[in-house]
């Protein structure tokens, strides 16, 4: 069939809000864009485990410890669901993982910042998960069926993540002066990187238009970022800590908060690999993967042996 006709049919299908499924015809660029986006999303979940896992062994109470452990584990699960969604498009997880390990694949820049205090774990839950949820709620309606279903499951599971982070922040802000200072310091360090999570501004985001046309994305980076700021301001107020942005103020006319300019030089540098923890994060993933190789090989060898035995017996 003529590719033009196929493309037209595809776009009509998408415009009618019908999902695209794995075996349906799709433009190669749609497939590749999805593989890239879904695998980056999966990498972000898996790399995102590391800064938080840092504090599992140091969690200050057993209740906090199990909550954090369960949360970080969920991220492994979410990475897994997402890799699975990418695999429906013909990618192989092992190849995607190799790309992460050799530094050629990207993941969310936020995880290249260090977790220095316990309050950082609260701030990550509150801000980073808060930002992620805004993006993920939108992606529940993405046009690719397996991605959409993975996001629905992820959103359901993540509903406790932001709450646990915010509760942690509340406890700190109602605690000793040292604890409150710890919370403020965490907000100071995580606020701007959280805003950067939504990516470049719309005018610097050339791929966005196509993603919107194909309904992979449903809202622009700047719209999502604005949602996040609007959500966060009253939450910070309840905590009694200050968002580190002197330009932050309510704009009656727009019905939104105005906010200051993001340091895009920092953003692009962290993306390029120059963030405070890029090297450690990739190194940690690589080490885990390489240390696990003999384990994975052993299981395959055992399965092969068993299959051969069954064959011989038959």
């Amino acid at each position, binding site marked *: 069939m003529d590719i033009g006709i196929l493309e037209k049919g595809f776009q009509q299908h998408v415009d009618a809000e019908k999902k695209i499924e794995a075996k349906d015809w799709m433009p190669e660029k749609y497939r590749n864009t999805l593989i890239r986006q879904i695998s980056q999303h999966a990498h972000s979940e898996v790399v995102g485990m590391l800064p938080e896992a840092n504090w599992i062994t140091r969690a200050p109470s057993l209740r906090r410890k199990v909550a954090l452990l369960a949360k970080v584990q969920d991220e492994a699960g979410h990475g*897994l*669901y997402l890799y*699975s969604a990418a695999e429906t498009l013909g990618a192989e997880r092992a190849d995607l993982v190799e790309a992460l390990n050799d530094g050629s694949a990207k993941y969310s820049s936020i995880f290249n910042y260090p977790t220095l205090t316990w309050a950082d774990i609260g701030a990550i839950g509150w801000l980073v998960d808060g930002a992620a949820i805004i993006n993920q709620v939108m992606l529940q309606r993405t046009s690719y069926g397996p991605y959409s279903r993975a996001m629905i499951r992820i959103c359901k599971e993540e509903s406790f993540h932001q709450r646990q982070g915010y509760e942690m922040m509340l406890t700190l802000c109602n605690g000793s002066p040292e604890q409150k200072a710890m919370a403020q310091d965490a907000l100071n360090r995580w606020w701007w990187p959280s805003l950067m999570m939504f990516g470049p501004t719309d005018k610097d985001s050339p791929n966005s238009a196509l993603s919107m046309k194909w309904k992979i994305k449903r809202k622009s980076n700047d719209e999502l970022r604005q949602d996040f700021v609007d959500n966060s301001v009253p939450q910070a107020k309840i905590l009694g800590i200050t968002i580190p942005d002197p330009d932050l103020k309510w704009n009656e006319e727009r019905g939104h908060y105005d906010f200051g300019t993001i340091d895009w030089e920092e953003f692009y540098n962290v993306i390029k690999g120059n963030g405070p923890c890029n090297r450690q994060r990739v190194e940690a993933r690589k080490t885990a993967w390489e240390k696990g190789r003999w384990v*994975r090989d052993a299981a395959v060898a055992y399965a092969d042996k068993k299959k051969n035995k069954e064959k011989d017996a038959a």
Partner: protein
Amino acid sequence: MSNKKNWPLWEIFIRSRQGLHHKHVGSLHAPDAEMAINNARDVYTRRQEGISIWVVESTAITASAPEDGAALYDPANDKVYRHPTFYDLPDEVGHM
């Protein structure tokens, strides 16, 4: 395609409670069926989602082709006589 000895992909089906069908929930990697069951339990039933698991190696599944959809499924569209509402009965018969 990678030439390394990767664990195969398995499709996971879970019965959420007694009386319901197993339903496809996603996939995962495992070296063999026994480990696939373990992994499915750990990955897909962390929140009491299931009481029974089926695992099927993905390569064992044969799917109908989307381009055959019109021939396979559209012919069912006009067989209205397969549905109870096709038949007119007087109200006094009651529920049937």
